[in-house]
């Protein structure tokens, strides 16, 4: 699930979007599909049902996602389908966020400029996943996007590719990943080398 209302102005998200395309992961570009925010609930629910891993890739606007992601959640995650009685459509699926954030990781901490770690700020996503019976992982974050050099951006794209490949081949250590505080941290330690 990709959301960026002004992709033409985003260097980082445009590059990050290369990763799923390279690995062959399907991308639903929400602002391209629903420029008027009129989300097609049936189509979205069908897409969710057909996949095991749901990634939300978006910029970290105001400590959350662009508005369409919220609209999408409000409309697509319906009672009796995603949660509540009979709401088991998403049960057991894996979900996490891929974020780009202007600030460095150091400012997302108590006493820092942004006061809370990114994982804390993502509690609504975590709880949404929980209510829907999904397995939640901490986010993959690209920090400091305003000063990011092209070379280090390449590194982030490569890391994202490795993460997606590991997920596809079932090589990601999910328990360690859950404790990691962020999938971008020490990614190589979370991926087992041999195919399982």
């Amino acid at each position, binding site marked *: 699930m990709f959301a960026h209302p002004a992709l033409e102005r985003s260097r980082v998200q445009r590059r990050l979007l290369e990763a799923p395309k390279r690995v062959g992961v399907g991308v639903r570009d929400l602002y391209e599909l629903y420029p*008027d925010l*009129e989300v097609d*609930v049936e189509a979205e629910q069908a897409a969710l049902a057909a996949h095991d891993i749901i990634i939300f890739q978006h910029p970290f606007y105001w400590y959350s996602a662009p508005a369409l992601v919220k609209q999408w*959640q*409000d*409309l*697509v*995650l*319906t*009672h*009796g389908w995603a*949660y*509540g*009685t009979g*709401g088991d459509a998403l049960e057991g699926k894996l979900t996490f966020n891929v974020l780009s954030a202007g600030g460095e990781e150091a400012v997302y901490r108590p006493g820092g400029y942004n006061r809370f770690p990114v994982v804390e700020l993502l509690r609504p996503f975590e709880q*949404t996943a929980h*209510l829907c019976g999904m397995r939640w992982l901490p986010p993959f974050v690209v920090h400091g996007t305003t000063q990011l050099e092209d070379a280090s951006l390449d590194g982030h794209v490569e890391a994202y590719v490795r993460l997606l490949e590991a997920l596809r081949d079932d090589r990601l250590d999910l328990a360690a990943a859950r404790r990691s505080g962020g999938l971008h941290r020490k990614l190589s330690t979370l991926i087992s080398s041999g195919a399982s």
Partner: protein
Amino acid sequence: MHDDHLFMQAFVYLAAAVVAVPVAKRLGLGSVLGYLMAGMLIGPYGLGLVGEEGKDVLHFAEFGVVMMLFVVGLELEPSLLWRMRTPVLGMGGLQVLFSAILGGGLGLVLGLPWQEALAIGLVLSLSSTAIVLQTLQEKGLMSTAAGRGSFAILLFQDIAVIPMLALFPLLALHAPEALPDAHEAGVMAGLPGWAQGLALLCAVSAVVLGGRFLMRPTFRWVARTGLRELFVALVLLLVIGIALLMDLVGLSPALGTFVAGVVLAESEYRHELESDIEPFKGLLLGLFFIAVGASVDFPLVAEEPGTIAGLVGLLVLVKLAVLFAVGRIFRLSLDQNLLMSFALAQGGEFAFVLFSFAVRAGVLEASTSAPLVAAVALSMALTPLLLVFFDRVVRPRVGTREAERSYDAPEEASVIIAGFGRFGQICSRLLEAEGVHATILEADSDQVDLLRKFGRKVFYGDASRLDLLHAAGAEQARLLVLAVDRSDKTKEIVQTVQRHFPDLPIMARASGRNEAYDLVSMGVQHVYRETFDSALRMGTDALVLLGSRAHRAHRAGARFRRQDEALVRELAGLRGQQDFVDIVRRRTKDVEQILKRDLEGAPVEGAGWDASPLRGDPALTPLESVESSASPSE
């Protein structure tokens, strides 16, 4: 009997063209070479189907060159021409200067008096506008650096003919054979110099001012009759009139019509003029090339094959060297420079005129000029072959790769909007605001006129005509916005475009449902019913005024649109079935039912905003006595 003869001649010329040109094109030699070969074949020294009158035909067919320069002018707006002043004066000037010096110098070495040598050098500095432009246009090379350079040089040469005509009588060595300016300068010859200058100035001003202020109302007046042939007649009248006027004051008709073309380049009738005159221009140019082919004096060539071959070789080599040097000075890249040099390495059609003038003015002996005329004609015939040689042998060695050349982007806009009424205007204003400049075609001359008053750039013409679509750049365009208000016209244009430009995506305006069905089943991907969106907005606003929450009304409208558009697509496929009317009635009712259910409080979409089903759901019963904060919907 006279008529029979005329028809017989026309038959021979047309047949030769129809046979030879496709063969030449098939062989990759270009149409010019085809015409030239046709001319040699039917000429007095070939099959002898046309005889001495070939000379008259040549004179008549020079009118094709005149028309070509008119069309060239039409494509050159004055601002563009002004930007070209450096290449025209610089490249053109240097080219003529160097050629005259080198050619004249060779003449001196060969023992000619300096006057003769200078005259020959000047005449041979000219290249063939007709052959070069036709060939470059056919290859789509006009917007490349070589194409622009060639054009600049040719333009300067065409202008330079005038001072040459004035200069030659001063170089006279012998008593003139006849009054040299009896033909060329027309009735003006008897007048004193200042009066001639004044007349010249008046004629040019008449063309410029007339084109600016007089022609537009005239075009409009004629266009309003709606008779296309009358418009064609007007265009021909204009070109012939200017040619006659220029002849009268001793200017080159080609130059005069070129100026008229430039003046009219800013007019809304530009594309229409271009496409109307195109067939005449093409045929007359073809006739001209045939006449050049027929005029090659093969017996003379056979008499002195060595001399003629030497002259042709020398002419081509000298021109190649001069052009290459000029290109170097103006920093053309190697392959562009070579292309320009090869393209322009021949004698020009004005050489025929100038040589005969020089003989009559007593500058040259007829015996000197005859082999030169033959050499010029042969060098012209050689040009397409030289370009084939360049394409197949030279370019692969020095050339730029194809991919890079594609950056010489076509100058036409990438979007064409056909129909600029109430509908097309809104669309175009949005595009314009986002920096997309469309080429606009409108068939109603009054409308064109009105819009021009508001400063819009609108062209007059009927977009269902293939030639107009060509002129508007449909080959390169990325999108055609069809905003014409007559549905039969719309379908006609769709058919034309689908047949001739299958890769051009079409967005089409439909007046109503039935037209939308037609367009969808014709394969148009993007169809817009002209009143649908406004009606939908009105319905939405009506709901709001009746007390509905604005967002709910908006969603109802959006949903209606989705359903109805899907319905149109579905039903378009079922057209032609016998019970079509029944199907339509039934399906329309289905859609209304769904909408009604939605409005009656069982929304299929937007259910996530509805908290009522959460009440009493055992799965959501709070574990502790906390308020049901688990619901994402409250």
